[in-house]
């Protein structure tokens, strides 16, 4: 019945104008029929109901064809004079009601709601529900839409939805104005649908994320829930209620600081899989010796503490709030005071420190910390946390060695989880392999492909690898992965690519050997270039291409094919 709400709203509002119209018409017509007139010969006559209806219809609508069928007498004209005002006012009232109804906000909301429901209902591809529309989700939706992945947005603020409507996405993004505290909202957004792939919630407040995860899991426990959690207790809660992926941007930061100190190649690989080129820039090289000053002992400060401790770096904290400083474990060095105060910085031995990390949640404070530290020690390596993408111009102008953008990190991480799940898994697996392994992979990639390889993810199944699957099923023959490396124009040559990772159910293979046999259902992460990926796709899907790269000669057409070609 919900779709009919807007229709009912219109009908209900139009009832009074309709009464007015019917009653005024009835009075006018009745009067016209009862008042006697004169025909052209001067004989008395009465208008019939049809005459009266005809006359009143064009009088009320102010069309005015004149007096018919004969000229009116004065008693008739007196009545008509009265009726003009009666019916015209009634008519204008009706039209005015229709116009005000069109502008009505409640009706507009109802219509938008009905349209949203229809769009979600008709969506056949898999889609992702985003809760909250902000600069982060906007970028993620944009990148996903370029990959052809559809999104649905639930946002409380209607202004933001208007902004979304102006955005030029590659695919349509239906948006619903609504508060997620109402569990019905999720149902309307299609969470119970089979093709609902994931629910994403990246609010700054962990409470909101917890709320979203809880309702989403209760509504549909099969749906993947991706949420942000920056506090440890919330992360624990989220995991207990079954949130599939709990992201903590500060943990990523801490991990990157650790990797940059201990295993730069792994850092290089990680940044590359997040969308950066496969090079290590100067700004990525943190000083390995000397003392670090970390300003802010909040969520990021505590995460950094773990990373720095593991890397064996000497560090000291500066925290303005005594309450937060008290949370520090015994033995940690925490100075209480404003970090942009020169005296406090001197107290932390800034003139001898090798690196300063401004990690507070206030962008301006972070900038002023960096400026103050540079004035005392111009050689110090500076790292600043940037909370909002909008501030990037100022941060660029400040010439900071390394800017950590929390929002960008979250965007890249979430995008990887949703659109590049294998790359995300690969990042996690490679961390256990150590620096040496990382160096080997980087060298392989650089010598084989170049400085900026791209990645592709695909599955060996009927949809993505028709030829391969058919060949394996029909012949039972084992095909090694080396076949995929061969070039379509010359089978003896090899394409510049590298299979990084195969997921085969529970089994996970990093850097598989070319002799590894292809199994149906394998999920592949391949590094290479766009042209190479095209070759791989052709070989996987087209039986003639597969035959050529396997046998080295063109496939002989079967007799029936030849016969049909002759015509």
């Amino acid at each position: 019945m919900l779709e009919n709400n807007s229709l009912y709203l219109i009908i209900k509002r139009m009832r009074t104008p309709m009464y007015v119209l019917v009653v005024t018409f009835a009075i006018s017509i009745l009067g016209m029929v009862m008042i006697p007139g004169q025909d052209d010969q001067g004989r008395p006559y009465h208008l019939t109901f049809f005459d009266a209806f005809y006359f009143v219809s064009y009088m009320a609508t102010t069309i005015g064809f004149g007096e018919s069928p004969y000229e009116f007498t004065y008693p008739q004209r007196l009545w008509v004079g009265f009726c003009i005002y009666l019916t015209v006012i009634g008519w204008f009232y009706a039209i005015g009601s229709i116009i005000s109804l069109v502008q009505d906000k409640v009706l507009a909301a109802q219509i938008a709601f009905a349209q949203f429901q229809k769009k979600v209902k008709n969506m056949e591809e898999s889609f992702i529900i985003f809760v909250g529309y902000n600069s982060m989700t906007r970028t993620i939706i944009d990148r996903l839409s370029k990959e052809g992945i559809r999104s649905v947005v639930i946002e409380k603020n209607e202004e933001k939805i208007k902004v979304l409507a102006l955005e030029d996405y590659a695919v349509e993004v239906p948006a619903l104005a609504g508060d997620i505290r109402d569990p019905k909202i999720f149902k309307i957004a299609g969470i119970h649908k089979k093709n609902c792939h994931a629910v994403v919630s990246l609010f700054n407040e962990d409470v909101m994320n917890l709320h979203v995860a809880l309702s989403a899991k209760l509504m549909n426990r099969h749906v993947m829930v991706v949420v942000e959690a920056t506090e440890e207790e919330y992360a624990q809660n989220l995991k207990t209620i079954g949130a599939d992926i709990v992201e903590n941007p500060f943990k990523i930061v801490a991990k990157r600081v650790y990797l940059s100190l201990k295993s730069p190649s792994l850092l290089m690989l990680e940044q590359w899989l997040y969308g950066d080129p496969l090079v290590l820039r100067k700004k990525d090289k943190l000083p390995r010796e000397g003392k670090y000053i970390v300003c802010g002992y909040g969520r990021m400060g505590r995460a950094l503490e773990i990373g720095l401790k593991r890397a064996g770096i000497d560090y000291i904290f500066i925290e303005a709030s005594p309450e937060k400083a008290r949370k520090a474990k015994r033995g940690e060095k925490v100075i209480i005071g404003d970090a942009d105060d020169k005296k406090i910085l001197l107290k932390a031995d800034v003139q001898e420190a090798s690196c300063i990390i401004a990690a507070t949640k206030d962008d301006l404070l972070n900038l002023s910390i960096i400026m103050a530290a540079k004035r005392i020690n111009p050689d110090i390596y500076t790292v600043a946390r940037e909370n909002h993408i909008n501030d990037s111009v100022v941060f660029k102008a400040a010439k900071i060695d390394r800017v950590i953008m929390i929002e960008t990190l979250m965007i890249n991480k979430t995008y990887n989880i949703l659109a590049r799940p294998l790359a995300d898994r690969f990042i996690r697996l490679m961390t256990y392999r150590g620096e040496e392994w990382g160096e080997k992979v980087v060298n392989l990639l650089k010598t084989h492909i170049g400085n900026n390889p791209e990645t592709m993810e695909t599955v060996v199944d009927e949809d993505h690898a028709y030829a391969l699957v058919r060949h394996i099923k029909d012949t039972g023959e084992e095909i090694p992965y080396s076949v995929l490396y061969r070039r379509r124009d010359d089978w003896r040559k090899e394409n510049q690519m590298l299979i990084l990772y195969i997921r085969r159910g529970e089994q996970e293979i990093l850097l598989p050997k070319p002799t590894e046999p292809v199994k149906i259902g394998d999920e592949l992460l391949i590094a290479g270039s766009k042209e190479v990926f095209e070759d791989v796709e052709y070989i996987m899907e087209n039986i003639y291409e597969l035959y050529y790269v396997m046998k080295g000669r063109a496939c002989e057409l079967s007799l029936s094919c030849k016969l049909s070609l002759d015509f």
Partner: protein
Amino acid sequence: MNMEKVISGFFIILALTLNFGFFYGDPTVLEQHNRYELFAAIIINLIATIYKLGDKTQLGAVLLATSLVADIQLIGAASIWALGEYVTGLNAEAVTAIISFSGGALLANVVSVILFTGDVLKSKR
């Protein structure tokens, strides 16, 4: 006493009685059927129809349907009358058509009243 029920009941039953008043009489003799009564029946039926609009219940939907049927039948009767008077002439065929159309409307109005009273009887108070 529910004022809304009084008004809706008034219009629904008035639509039926006026309709019956017009229908009653020899179906071949137009003089036995009052044109003012037909006009009143049409107007009251229209008002009753508008009254039933916007009711989202199952019963409301059926009541609205019967009312719409009665409207169409009565307006049909009036149209035939106008057509007969000005175009084809009021012969016996036209006259019986007018009366039988209003008879059909009467049936729809009877159904409407039965549904309405049924609903009233069903409610406990």
